[in-house]
């Protein structure tokens, strides 16, 4: 059998044939070599943000970097489980966004220092809020990168509070209690501070603890929930508030239960990110104009509140496209103005120079109305403290957060299961166990 031998004519034809087929062959190869960046984000509460982020921003970034970007979304209640599954599998997304500092996953994250450093060339030093939210003081590494955060003001129905002779809304915890009592008596509408196990209750009750000059750790990271009588005062306050005007449903709300109750006018006020108000503006603008905002309330420690969201991105140490993920974050900061706009003023930038006219934008918000309601957020950086304040946001702090120790402590008091003293003691014991677990002996 004669072997197939190319003739001289065949050899001469080869370059021409190759030139004809080249575009098809190279295109297939290029597609095979195109990078992929897989991103997981939480479902943003402001309608319109996710379609922009996924459909526009991420795609455009991908085109610029010759990268196919995929975005998957999770509800806030699904995030921890989804992240845990990826960690267990050692595979998943390259970039995972959490609405709180994911310190518990610090062992599975790269050190994000170089991302912060790359950003600092263009936007200055890392603000303390982001530093204390994402730096692990024992490993000396940044377990996440915080690009933005969302303040958590008090939302209140202006007409109900005006009838209670408080048209500007409550500015102190004492007036809150007096006002909700009156509104409950007059209209049967209770107070809407969340007590159920969820993001909203964690934020609300943490803010109350800080307002009462207490918290579960001190500046050195020692457990301190039971060392100050102010915890007892805070527990007594919330119990009294509950007895005066609290909704029993508040103990059983699911995710965003307080938002739904507020939008349905079933409660007179609540603490939340402004996604609540933006939702109201989209669904019922005439009602939304009647919801106003206030900074956190004045308590013995002053005016302090927790952030509703600390937008923290993690590049897993098992990510396949670490370089792309890091570049995505650096570029995201350059686009903080778009993030602020598309989130409808919900995502405040970590680097303030990226939205230098933030206060003017709040003042001129088209839905601000005669009260210029969004202007109330102009000082949010002054009154917002990072989770873990006054210490760092360590893994043990976030496990306390993730396991709802604080909401459970308050709930046990308002339901009468425990006295404030016993509840504080029980919480302290539980928190100490968590802290001991994470800390080297």
């Amino acid at each position, binding site marked *: 059998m004669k072997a197939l031998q190319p003739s001289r004519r065949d050899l001469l034809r080869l370059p021409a044939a190759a030139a004809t087929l080249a575009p098809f062959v190279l295109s297939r190869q290029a597609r095979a070599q195109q990078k992929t960046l897989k991103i997981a984000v939480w479902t943003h509460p402001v309608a319109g943000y996710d379609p922009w982020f996924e459909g526009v921003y991420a795609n455009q970034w991908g085109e610029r970097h010759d990268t196919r970007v995929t975005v998957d979304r999770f509800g806030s209640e699904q995030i921890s489980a989804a992240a845990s599954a990826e960690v267990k599998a050692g595979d998943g997304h390259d970039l995972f966004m959490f609405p709180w500092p994911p310190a518990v996953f610090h062992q599975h994250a790269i050190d994000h220092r170089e991302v912060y450093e790359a950003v600092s060339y263009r936007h200055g030093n890392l603000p303390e809020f982001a530093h204390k939210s994402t730096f692990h003081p024992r490993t000396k590494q940044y377990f996440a990168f915080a690009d933005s955060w969302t303040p958590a003001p008090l939302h209140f129905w202006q007409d109900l509070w005006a009838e209670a002779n408080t048209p500007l809304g409550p500015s*102190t915890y*004492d007036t809150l209690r007096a006002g909700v009592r009156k509104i409950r008596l007059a209209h049967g509408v209770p107070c809407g501070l969340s007590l159920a196990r969820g993001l909203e209750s964690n934020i609300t009750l943490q803010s109350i603890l800080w307002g009462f000059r207490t918290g579960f750790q001190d500046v050195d990271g020692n457990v301190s929930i039971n060392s100050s009588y102010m915890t007892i005062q805070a527990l007594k306050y919330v119990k009294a508030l509950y007895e*005066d005007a609290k909704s029993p449903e508040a103990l059983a709300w699911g995710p965003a239960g307080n938002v739904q109750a507020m939008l349905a006018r079933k409660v007179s006020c609540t603490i939340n990110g402004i996604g609540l108000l933006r939702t109201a503006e989209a669904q019922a603008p005439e009602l939304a104009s009647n919801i106003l905002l206030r900074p956190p309330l004045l308590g013995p420690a002053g005016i302090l509140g927790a952030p509703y969201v600390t937008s923290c991105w993690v590049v897993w140490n098992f990510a396949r496209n670490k370089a792309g993920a890091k570049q995505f974050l650096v570029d995201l900061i350059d686009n903080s103005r778009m993030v602020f706009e598309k989130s409808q003023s919900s995502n405040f930038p970590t680097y303030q120079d990226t939205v230098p006219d933030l206060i003017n934008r709040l003042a001129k918000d088209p839905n601000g109305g005669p009260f210029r309601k969004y202007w109330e957020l102009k000082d949010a950086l002054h009154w917002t403290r990072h989770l873990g304040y006054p210490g760092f946001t360590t893994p043990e702090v976030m496990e306390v957060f993730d396991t709802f120790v604080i909401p459970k402590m308050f709930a046990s008091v308002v339901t009468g299961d425990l006295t404030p003293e016993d509840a504080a003691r029980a919480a302290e014991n539980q928190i100490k166990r968590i802290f001991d677990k994470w800390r080297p002996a």
Partner: protein
Amino acid sequence: MKTTLSIFTLLVLLLALAVVLPGQLKAQAAPVAANAFSFPHFNPAPFDFNDAFYTANGINVQQLDNPADGRFGLFRQTGPPARAGQLNWVFDRSNTDPDRNNVRILATTGGYIDDGTGAPTQFISLIAFLLNQQIFTGVADARGILMHDIIGNFEAYAALKQRQADGTFLTRPCRASQGITTNCFSVASVATPNLRQDWRFATNRTAADGSSGSPFGYFCDDILGAWIITYFYFTDQAVGPNATALCKGILSGLVGKNGASLDGTPIIKTADELNNDLEANGCGAEFQLDEAGGDGGAVWLICPAIPDPRNGGIAPDAFADVVLKPNGAPLDPQLSNNFNCLKFFGRLCNETPPPAPIL
């Protein structure tokens, strides 16, 4: 030598007081010439703000001008805190500040500065009590900020008497807004005769260094000099049959350090004493009144701190509104001494007078 000089200084001081004081009682507007012991007088004495300025800063003037708010210039020219022969305010055409009117404030309340030192160096001009949110128009100032939001950052700490005329000691405030109306001490008035000790004023809060957490500064943003009143008191763990050994020990230590109030409880001069000694141990507590007016007392004050009480900031005819013991002596002599040094010499008592001119 030092002792001799001190005695000499004291004698001259007393002589100066003896010369000046009778004049003060007769004609309150009589100026005092600067002398070798004085700082030069160039700071203006305090006047009330004019109506346009109040309006521009979101205050409902009509509400301010009612008897309950008791705005000086309209009400209370005599009577407490003025004693016999004193006036709380006078009409005076010497004002040159376009934001103020011709009502010069003489009633000057003293207190402790809130910078941690507890120094008795703060002096405020009484103008009006604000009883509920109707006092605010809801109209923002020229910068777009509500005065209500600004005031909420600046606390004046009031210490109402808890010991009643019959000697009983009450450990909870009367607050109708929270359903507490019996077996409680009154919050109806912060007039000085109702106080167990002098005030503490958070004039030091500033946004500049971020240390106070306040986005505003008292002297730069709170241009009405207004305050939210934070009332503080001793709980039943501190005083009475339920008092704990811990609180008893803390109170005893504070009395030794600061002296006793008219109630016999310690004088509290600093945030650290209130926050960390008392409240953290359950011995003390603080609160604000219902902004709707449901508790019946003053929620806010328009009583601007005198930015620099030296160099004439305290007028020669002003008088000190300080807490007095039953015998008429000031509870804290340092406070009234400082007031008198400012009034007569334009300086605090511990400040060095300018060098004598070389003859």
